[in-house]
Each structure stands twice: as C-alpha cells, then as structure tokens.
C-alpha cells in the first residue's frame, strides 16, 4: 500500500457515531473569534470588512496573519489562537 492510497478499515464500534474524526464541540456562547489572514493578495480587504461585520454582531476579533500561505500556520500563531480565542475563521483562499 503506498502512502497516497486510502486505507479501508472496518469500524470496531457499535456505529452510533458519524464517520470521520470528531470535530470540536461548538459552544453556545461565541465571544472572541480569531481571523487568520492566509496572506493571499487582497485578502486583507476582505478580512477588514469581515472584521467590521463580526464586531457589529458583538464579537471580539483578533486579527492574525500567517507568514505565508504556502505552509500551515506556525506553532506560535496556533498557540496564541488557542489561548485567546473561542473559534477561528481563516480566509481568503483562492
């Protein structure tokens, strides 16, 4: 089996849960949202308006930018988000 093929396994559970890795729980009160700019050109214009709209809706917004869109977010960006924010919006991929 090469690294690029999918691997089929049989479900060892009673199959009550939906497939796939579980997503994070969605808490009812969403306060601070991290807005991560992946740094594609003109993305900041989009994010500026998104930030304004989110604040209008009563959320705190923390703007962060990845150093480059070609790699996943570095550890310090992720850590800062994890400690300070309740949820994340990452934009704008094109």
């Amino acid at each position: 089996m090469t690294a690029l093929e999918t691997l089929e396994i049989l479900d060892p559970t009673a199959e009550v849960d939906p497939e796939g890795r579980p997503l994070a729980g969605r808490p009812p009160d969403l306060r601070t949202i991290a807005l991560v700019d992946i740094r594609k050109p003109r993305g900041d214009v989009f994010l500026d308006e998104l930030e304004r709209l989110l604040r209008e809706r009563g959320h705190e917004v923390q703007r962060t930018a990845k150093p480059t869109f070609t790699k996943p977010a570095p550890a310090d960006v992720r850590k800062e988000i994890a400690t300070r924010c309740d949820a994340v919006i990452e934009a704008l991929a094109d």
Partner: protein
Amino acid sequence: MSCGLRDVVEFEGTGRPAVLIASDAFVQAAEEQSRKLGQPALHRAFVSHPIQDRTDDEMHALARTIVDEALAALTPKEATT
C-alpha cells in the same frame, strides 16, 4: 487552500471550531482534501470566484454574503441528531 484546511484540522483538534473561507473554484478540491485528511465534515464557506481582480467594494460585498454562513459553522446546530 490545502494549507488552510490543514490549519482548520489543527484548530479543531485543539478544540477550537474553525471554518475556512475560499473561492468557489475550490469546492471540489476542498471536499477531496477534507476526505483525505480524514475529516469530510470540515467546515468551509465559499465566495464566488474570481477574487484577485475585484474592487474594494466588491470584496466588501463578498464578505457581507458570507459572514452569517461562517458564523453558523462555528456555533451549535439547531437540529438534534
């Protein structure tokens, strides 16, 4: 776009609801990538392509079309399973 999805996987893994906003040129690719990352249900929201040559006003309008969908991806679903 695939790096963005990996980020979303990481954030979800640390317990932070996350959503990626992308151009709708990526609908198929995002679905495939999510599946390959083992999380077909990763949240994504799409704005209409193209992006690069939009005016500032058009970009702002795109943000307005998507903000509620993005927020919905981060909050509990109303329906029970």
